[in-house]
C-alpha cells in the first residue's frame, strides 16, 4: 500500500512564478477526491505534483511506502496521449513498462478493453478512434495496471454528454473496485455526481479539503462561496 499520500508545505515555482503554494494535505484510500478550482487555479499542477511529474520546489510529497510508488499509480491526461499503435498494443505497452509478465499481457489488455467497451476496436489504430473512445482507451490503459491511485486531469472536458457519462461510470466502477480516484474538474455538476471529498484550489493555494456534501452546502471560505455561486 502506497497510500496515504502526504503533502507538507509543498510549493512549486515555474519561471519565477509560484504555481502552487504551501500545500499541506493527506490523500487517503477509499474516497473519490475531486479537485475543484477555476481555470488556472493550479489543479493540473497539483495532480502532476502528487503523481511526481513535477518536483516540489520546497516542502515534501511523501507516500506511505517509498518503493516502486510509480507502479501503483496511473494518470489520465486531459487530452489522451496515445501511441501510434493499435488499441491493444497501447495497453500492452503500459503493461510491459510496468513490468507485468509477458504471458499475461494479451489476457489483461483484452479484459480492460472489454471493460471499457472497446474490445471490437482492439486492432484499430488508437489514434483513429473518436476522441471519446480515445479517452476511454486512456482509462483502459490506466486501469489495466490495477493502480492503487488514479489521477485524472479533467478527463471529460472535451467530450460530449454521452461520452462523459460513460467515463463517469468507469470512474465509479474503478472506485468500487478499490482504486483511489483523484480527479480535477471545473464542472460543478460533475463534481457533485462524483465527489466524496473536495479539494478546492484557489490561486495555487488549497482553500478547502472537506467532505463533498459539506463543501457544496456549507463552504467555509469566501473563494469557495464565490466559486459555487
Amino acid at each position, binding site marked *: 500500500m502506497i497510500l496515504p499520500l502526504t503533502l507538507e508545505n509543498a510549493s512549486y515555482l515555474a519561471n519565477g512564478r509560484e504555481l502552487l503554494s504551501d500545500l499541506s494535505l493527506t490523500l487517503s484510500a477509499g474516497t473519490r477526491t475531486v479537485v475543484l478550482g477555476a481555470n488556472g487555479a493550479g489543479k493540473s499542477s497539483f495532480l502532476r505534483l502528487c*503523481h511526481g511529474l513535477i518536483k516540489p520546489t520546497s516542502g515534501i510529497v511523501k507516500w506511505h511506502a517509498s518503493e516502486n510508488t*510509480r507502479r501503483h499509480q496511473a*494518470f489520465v491526461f486531459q487530452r489522451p496521449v496515445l501511441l501510434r499503435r493499435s488499441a491493444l498494443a497501447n495497453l500492452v*505497452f503500459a503493461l510491459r*513498462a*510496468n513490468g507485468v509478465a509477458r504471458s499475461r499481457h494479451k489476457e489483461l489488455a483484452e479484459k480492460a478493453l472489454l471493460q471499457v467497451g472497446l474490445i471490437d476496436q482492439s486492432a484499430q489504430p488508437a489514434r*483513429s478512434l473518436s476522441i471519446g473512445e480515445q479517452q476511454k482507451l486512456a482509462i483502459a490503459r490506466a486501469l489495466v495496471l490495477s493502480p492503487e491511485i488514479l489521477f485524472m486531469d479533467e478527463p471529460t472536458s472535451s467530450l460530449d454528454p454521452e461520452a462523459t457519462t460513460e467515463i463517469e461510470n468507469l470512474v465509479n466502477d474503478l472506485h468500487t473496485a478499490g482504486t483511489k480516484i483523484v480527479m480535477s474538474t471545473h464542472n460543478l455538476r460533475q463534481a457533485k455526481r462524483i465527489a466524496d471529498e473536495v479539494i478546492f484550489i484557489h490561486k495555487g493555494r488549497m482553500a478547502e479539503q472537506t467532505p463533498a456534501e459539506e463543501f457544496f452546502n456549507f463552504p467555509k471560505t469566501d473563494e469557495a462561496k464565490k466559486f459555487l455561486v
Partner: protein
Amino acid sequence: MKSLWEAAATAFDLIWSFDTALVEIVVLSLRVSFFALIFAAAIGLPLGAFLAVKSFPGRSFFVAILNALFGLPAVVVGLLVYLMLSRTGPLGIFGLLYTPAAMIIAQAVLITPLVAALSRQTVLSFHQEYDEQLRSFGITALGSIPTLLWEARFSLSVVLLAGFGRAIAEVGTVMIVGGNIEHVTRVMTTAIALETSKGNLNLAVALGIVLLLISLLVNLASQAVTALSNRWQGVSSS
C-alpha cells in the same frame, strides 16, 4: 538538338537492353548509398534522439555543430575522408582509398549529420507530445528513446529517404575518395561527369535518366510513407 535526341534515344536503348556497363554502375551506386545510409542511420537516429530527449551542459553547442555539419560542402567531406584514408593518414593502413568501402565511408560521413539533425527535430516533437505520459509510466529520458524512434517511424523513414537521396546524388566526395575507377568505383554521378567531359553523351544521358528515376522513386516513397502514416493515425491525407 539532333544529337540530344539521338543521345536520349540511344540512352533509352541502353536502359531497355540492361546494358552491362550501365547496370554495373547503377548497382554499385545503389549498393554504396544503401550501405552509407545503414551506417548513417545506425549513428544518426540514436544520436538525434539522444540530443532531443537528454539535457546536458553544452547540448545547444553540440546541436549547433551538428546543424553546421549538416550544411558541410561535400568536397570538404571528401577531402577530409581522403586525408584519413590516404597512406599517410591515420586509417591508411587499411588500404581503403579508391575502394567502394571508402565511398561508403565518405557518403556516410556526409549524410550522418543530416540524418541526426533531422531525426533530432522529428524526435523532439514526439518527445514533447509523449514526455509526461512516458514519465508517468516510469520510463526515463534515455529509456524513452526506442519508443520515440518507433513512434516516429514514418517521419523518420522520410528522413532516411532524404539522406539516401542526398547520398546517391553526390559527386564530389565519391570522386575524391573513389577515384572513378572503371569496374571498381565508378558510380552514376562520377560516370556522368566523366562521360560528359569525353563527349560520350549516350551513357551520360542514360545514367542521368536512371538517376532521375531513382530520385523520383525516393520522392514517391516519401509520399507513400506519409500517406500510410496519416491513414494509420486516422488523418485524411491531402
